[in-house]
Structures are given as structure tokens and as C-alpha cells.
């Protein structure tokens, strides 16, 4: 297991290197540079040249990359051009915000959607199946930002139950933190529950058609026992993989939801950095996102044998 994990991590190094080089080069190929954006129309040629030199943008691109990658290997991702903050602590602080919302939403969505998907599969073609699949499809079809706005209008504007603006980490103040994350979590939850439910249903349907389920029924086992003891573990594998992909995606940024609820998360930071051509932040964000993808999928792969013993880490 350890060997497998280490080899996967080692295999990730070239991936991260390719990501670094691509991001570094591509962002510089886009017209526009941070110096002119910072000075705007007030810039004269001399101030522009001064600022570019101060930001190190006048160096050849391979020199800039060499400096950046050298520092990155020591954990120094540089400083944000716009806010002057150190990039690594900035990224970690923003990731903590996004992760809090995403983890709560995805865990809740999985807890609700996996059993419901199995029930839908169990009652395939019936009213329960129709209702669940219909609801899942509806939730899946509603854009997350629109769902967020609807929730905001209902719970903030009309009912006045929840605060609109602000963010307090749950680990800092549970009650306040909960209040501020309810709506973004609910928005993500409602969206992801549809995705997970459909996957859970589809994989359960496949399993329920296999001979060993027929055999279990022939032995007279109850339906709940068949579903839980025999179908669940085998059916959960694909859903587990999907959860990994969803987590990787969402941790990389839920910019739209963060914008609607004015939450200072990683996605919003990345979007703002792209518009401001804040190269160190963009590079740091994308490297972090790529690393998270690798790690989340590694964890998913390592835990997979727990659900399906036929699959081994080797």
C-alpha cells in the first residue's frame, strides 16, 4: 500500500511540472500585463518600465520561470502582485474557506443521495423512482448560481432567517460559522445531490441485475439485507470514484457560489487574479488545484479496496 502510494506520488511530479510550465507560459502569452493594469490609463512609459522592472517582468521568460520554480521548491510561491500578500498563506487561507463549504456539502450530499439512489434503483420504474430521478434531474439542471440566488431571495430577503454577507470559519465560532455557510452549502448540496443520486442509482441497477443478487433473493434474504449487505459495497465503487472527481473539481474553486455569497474562497481568488494578471497567484492557485486533484484521487484509489475487495491497491 505504502509503495503504491509513493509510486503514485512520484508519478504526480511530472504532471505537476507540466502544469507549472504550461500555466507559467500560457498566462504570459495572453495580452496584457499586471504593470499596465495596476497603473491603468495613468501610466507613462517610464513608470510602466519602472513597475515592470520592480515586478521582475522585464526578465526573459525562462529566467522568470527559473526564479519562480526555484522558490516554489522551497515552498515560496512569491507575493501577490496586487495585494502584496505571500501567495502560499493566502492560498491556504482561501482553500480552508472553500474546503469547509465543499466538504460539508459533498459529505451531506453523499449521505443523502447514495441511499436514495439505491432506493430508486430498488424501486425502478415505480413512483418513488420517478419522483427521485425527476427531482435529481431538476436539481442537476438548475445552474448553481441561480439556485444560490433563489435561496438567497427566499431565506435572506423574504424570510429574513439568514444573514446575507460575511463569513466566519466554523472552527472559530460554530454558531456564527454555521449561519454563514448554510446557504452556500445548501446550494452546492442541492446541485451535487442530483449528480450523486443518478450515479448511485445507475450503479445499483447494474449490481441488482447480477446473478449473486438473484441468488441472495432465492435464499430468501430480505430486500434491505440484499441492498445493504450485498449490493451497497459493490455499487458504491463508481459513486466513490465520482465523489473523488467532484471533490477535486469543487475544491479547485466554486467561484460562482463564492461570488454570489461574497465568500473569500479559492475560486474567487483565482478569477480575480486572472483578471488582474496576478501571475504569482494564478500560478500558485493552479498548482494547488492540480496537487489537490492528484491527492484526492490518490486517496480515492487507496480507499477503493475497502468497498470492493476485488480491487487491490497494487
Amino acid at each position, binding site marked *: 500500500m505504502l509503495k503504491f502510494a509513493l509510486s503514485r506520488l512520484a508519478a504526480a511530479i511530472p504532471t505537476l511540472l507540466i502544469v507549472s510550465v504550461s500555466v507559467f507560459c500560457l498566462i504570459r502569452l*495572453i*495580452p*496584457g*500585463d499586471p504593470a*499596465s*493594469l*495596476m*497603473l*491603468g*490609463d*495613468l*501610466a*507613462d*512609459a*517610464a*513608470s*510602466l518600465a519602472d513597475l515592470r522592472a*520592480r515586478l521582475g517582468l522585464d526578465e526573459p521568460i525562462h529566467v522568470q520561470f527559473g526564479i519562480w520554480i526555484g522558490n516554489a521548491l522551497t515552498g515560496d510561491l512569491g507575493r501577490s502582485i*496586487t*495585494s*502584496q*500578500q505571500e501567495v502560499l498563506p*493566502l492560498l491556504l487561507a*482561501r482553500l480552508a474557506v472553500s474546503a469547509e463549504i465543499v466538504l460539508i456539502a459533498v459529505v451531506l450530499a453523499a449521505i443523502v443521495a447514495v441511499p436514495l439512489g439505491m432506493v430508486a434503483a430498488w424501486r425502478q420504474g415505480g413512483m418513488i423512482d420517478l419522483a427521485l430521478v425527476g427531482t435529481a434531474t431538476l436539481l442537476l439542471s438548475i445552474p448553481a448560481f441561480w439556485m444560490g*440566488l433563489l435561496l*438567497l*431571495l427566499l431565506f*435572506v*430577503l423574504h424570510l*429574513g*432567517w*439568514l*444573514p*446575507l*454577507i*460575511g*463569513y466566519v470559519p466554523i472552527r472559530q465560532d460554530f*454558531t*456564527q460559522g*454555521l*449561519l454563514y455557510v448554510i446557504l452556500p452549502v445548501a446550494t452546492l448540496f442541492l446541485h451535487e445531490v442530483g449528480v450523486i443520486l443518478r450515479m448511485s442509482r445507475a450503479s445499483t441497477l447494474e449490481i441488482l441485475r447480477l446473478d449473486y443478487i438473484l441468488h441472495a433473493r432465492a435464499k430468501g434474504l430480505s430486500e434491505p439485507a440484499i441492498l445493504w449487505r450485498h449490493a451497497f459495497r459493490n455499487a458504491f465503487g463508481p459513486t466513490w470514484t465520482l465523489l473523488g472527481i467532484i471533490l477535486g473539481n469543487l475544491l479547485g474553486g466554486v467561484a460562482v457560489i463564492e*461570488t*454570489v*455569497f*461574497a465568500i*473569500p474562497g479559492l475560486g*474567487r*481568488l483565482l478569477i*480575480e487574479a486572472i*483578471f*488582474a*494578471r496576478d501571475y504569482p497567484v494564478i500560478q500558485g492557485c493552479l498548482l494547488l488545484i492540480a496537487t489537490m486533484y492528484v491527492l484526492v484521487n490518490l486517496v480515492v484509489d487507496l480507499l477503493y479496496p475497502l468497498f470492493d475487495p476485488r480491487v487491490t491497491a497494487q
Partner: protein
Amino acid sequence: MRTILISTLMLGMLGAPATAQTIVASIAQDVRSTNPGVNRDDTTDGVVLHMVEGLVGYREDGSVGPLLAKSVEMSADGLTYTFPLRDGVTFHNGASLTAEDVLWNWARYMDPATEWRCLAEFDGRNGVKVEDISAPDPMTIVMRINKPNAVFLDALARTDCGMAGILHPDSLAADGSWDRPIGTGPYKFAAWKRGESFEMVAFDGYVSPPGDKPDGYVGAKTPRAEAIRLHVISDPETIKAGLLSGTLDLAAVASTDVPMFRSNTDFNVADSMDASKHTLSLQTADPLMSNVALRQAIAAAIDLPMLVAQVTNGMGQPNASAVFPQSMYYSDIQKQQFGHDPARVRDLLAEAGYKGEPITIIANKRPTTPSFETAVVAQAMMQAAGINAKIEVMEWATQLSRYFSGNYQMMSFSYSSRFDPALSFEQFSGPFDGKSGKVWHNPEALALIDEVKAVSDPARRQAIFDALHQMYLNDVPMIIYSNGLNDIVTSARLTGDVSWQSKLRLWEVTKQ
């Protein structure tokens, strides 16, 4: 369970809305830094200038008045400026303001390590050099410059220069790095949650400049609220919900939302005009656009009042001048505009030898400027007049890059505020170098701009500005069509003018 849930919610809600005396506003972007004139944008300037003040500041007519100074005296040769300081002014930490503090600040600003964006305005690189600064007594500052300059005080008052704000030395950390602003402004720095919110509290020891009402950045400046909390919110729908729910006391809203708020008695809407210029810039170095008859044809094809009405939902005022309408230099001549004359367009196009070559208007879709909307309306008007106009939309950073390089024909572009008309003309005038974005290269105009920067006599300046405006109307290096307009919605709980020049100005604003 239900009781617990409701209690929890109620408990949480206590912390959400503002206290009675806290003005809560939204800002579209986070503050960049609290270091005046160093790492800044318009939002940052608006916030920082609640906490720091300079020797002089802008009045509402664009002239410069004393702020921390009691008065400003210029010597007969125009080289020496004397600033006696106001008595009783203290910093937020209780220390009294003295001339020594001003000397310390000036030395800090002139140190390249400070990275003050306006260093070039005072070290001779842009013409003016402060050759000497001294304190003949503890409450007087004297500055001597290298040559007479009519915009020296203007440069000191510039908001993007942080008003050359006077800070207490404790604003720096022990290692000399920036810590926090300890200024003399009506509000004190309280807290900053990056990406989320910025908070200031009233400075109890504030000594307001004389005046019975605010006058730009001078005049009455007493803090009337206990605190100001600014939330970073970029989504227009969230801002709207914030206002309607009472969470926000004021915010800039999209012009399409203005009618809704106007019809609601719980809100007031202020159309805040500023000196920024919305323009259709014509790149006169482009082979096609270098033809002055063609540029005149384009100007005659565009119905300015209709264009402005379209892009501002009827709320903007057309202005074709580089001088903003509130300026003391906005004369009757400055009110002259390009005449909309479709018949003349035909003649001018024939004179220009125009054969239907495409003319591309570059625009962006930033929500803060009507760039794209303007391009669409201008394209329609030009096409109706027989000019083959096309639109190319690009992201702002890309457009800015094209602007500086001069690689374009037409561009829907907005210039930031310049109060002194000389600086406003200078924004778009200069030799073409492919680096600085200048579009008006007329040597006669450039000479007049240089001259007016050295002239202090208002009558002479007015004459030069009027001459420049008439030359500009004839040369058509760009089509200025209106000034910036921000629609600020305020809760009826607030009284007072909450913004000036599209920046927050929350002193003398009370909350019921």
C-alpha cells in the same frame, strides 16, 4: 429542536446586521493596501482618504484648497509654496501634527523604496522637482520647486497619489515596513479581513477643516457615524438583496436597477458624476484613421445626446469636453460639442476618399464602464451614416495592452478622473510612441498644454483651455461623450452626501 434552531438563528442574526451607528456599504473590489498612493486603485483611494489627509485637497470645482494646511501662499516668482499648518490637528494615536511630521513624510515619499506612484511628479522626471523642503517653525512648511508650475498643488492633491497623505511615523513597523495608517482623517483604521470586509471607526479627536458642509475633500469633515464597515461584494444581485434586506446602507448599483430603487421610498438614489471621461478614442496614427476628414465624418455621424441617453438609461449628461462640467473652467466654449449632421457625413466621407473600409471599434464588457454598450450604439450610428463599423470585444487587460501599443483604429475607452484640465488634455495628448497610448499628436496643441501647465492666471488658463477645446473639436482625436456616472443607492436611514467623484465620502453622513 425547533426552539434550539430558532434560538441559534436569532443568536447568529445578532452579529449579522450593522449596529445603529455603523454605516454598512459594499465595495466591488477589496482594498489593495492601506498605504496611501503606493498600491492602490480607485476603491482603495476612496477608503484610504477617510483615514489620511494631505496638506491640500480638491474642492468640488476641481480647484485645490488647504486641508492640513491653514492656507497656501505662493511666492511672486511661482517657485516657493508656504503651508502654515492648522492648529490642534492630531494623529489617530493622539500625537500632535507638526512640521517635523511633514518633513518625515516627504522624505519617505521621495525615497524610491517607498514605491510611491507619484514620485516622478516631484523628482524632476515629469518636469517638476521639489528642490527643497524646510520647516522654518514647528507649524510651517516651505517647499521650493525648480520652475513655476500651475499643477504642482494639483499633483499634491491627487487622490491616486494618496493626497501625499501625512502619516504618523508609527504607521511603519519597527523594520520600516508598512504596518497601518495612523493619519489625521475623520475615521481610523479598525480591521481588515482581506477579501471580505474593511472597517473604520470614528476618530473622536478629529479637528475638521473650516466649512459648514463638505466641499470635495476639504470643507466640513466631521465623522457623524460611529463606524463604517465595507463589504467586498461583486455580484450585482447580491448587492441588490443586501440593500433590500437592510444589510447594506448604501451601494453602487447597475443603472438598470435604478428605477426600482427610485420607486421605493425606503431608498434614495444619487447619480454621482465624476471627472472620468467616457470616450470613443480614434487612433490617429492608424493609416486609415489618420485622415482628419474621416474622423470628422465619424464625429458627425454620432448623435451624442442620443448615445449618452442610450448607454446611461437616460441619466447621463452629454459632454464632449476634456473639462468636467463642475470645473471652474467649464465655460460656454467647453459646452460646444461635435454636431450631429448626417448630410455633412456624406460630404466628409467623399472628401476623405472613404471606400467602405472596415473600421473596428474595440470594446470590453467590464460592468463599471459602458464600453460595450457605447460601441454597439456608435456602430449602429456609423453604419446608418455609411461607415463600415465593426466591433471587437476583448477582455480589459487585453484592451489596455492594445491601447498602450496604439494598435487599434477605434476604441470605446474610459479615462480616469483628472481635475485640472491641463492634466485631462495631457492624458490623451502627446507624440505617438507605440507605448503610451496618446492619440492627439498636434504639435500646436501639445505646445499649448505645456504652456498652460506653467500658467497660474485663471483667465489666461481659461483662454488656453478654450482654444484647446476648439482645436480638439476640429482635429477629432477622440470623441468624448460624457463623464463618469455612478448610481449610488442609499437607505433612507442615511442623510448626507455619501459619495463624491464616484468615491465614498462618508464624513458628515449620519445614520438614523
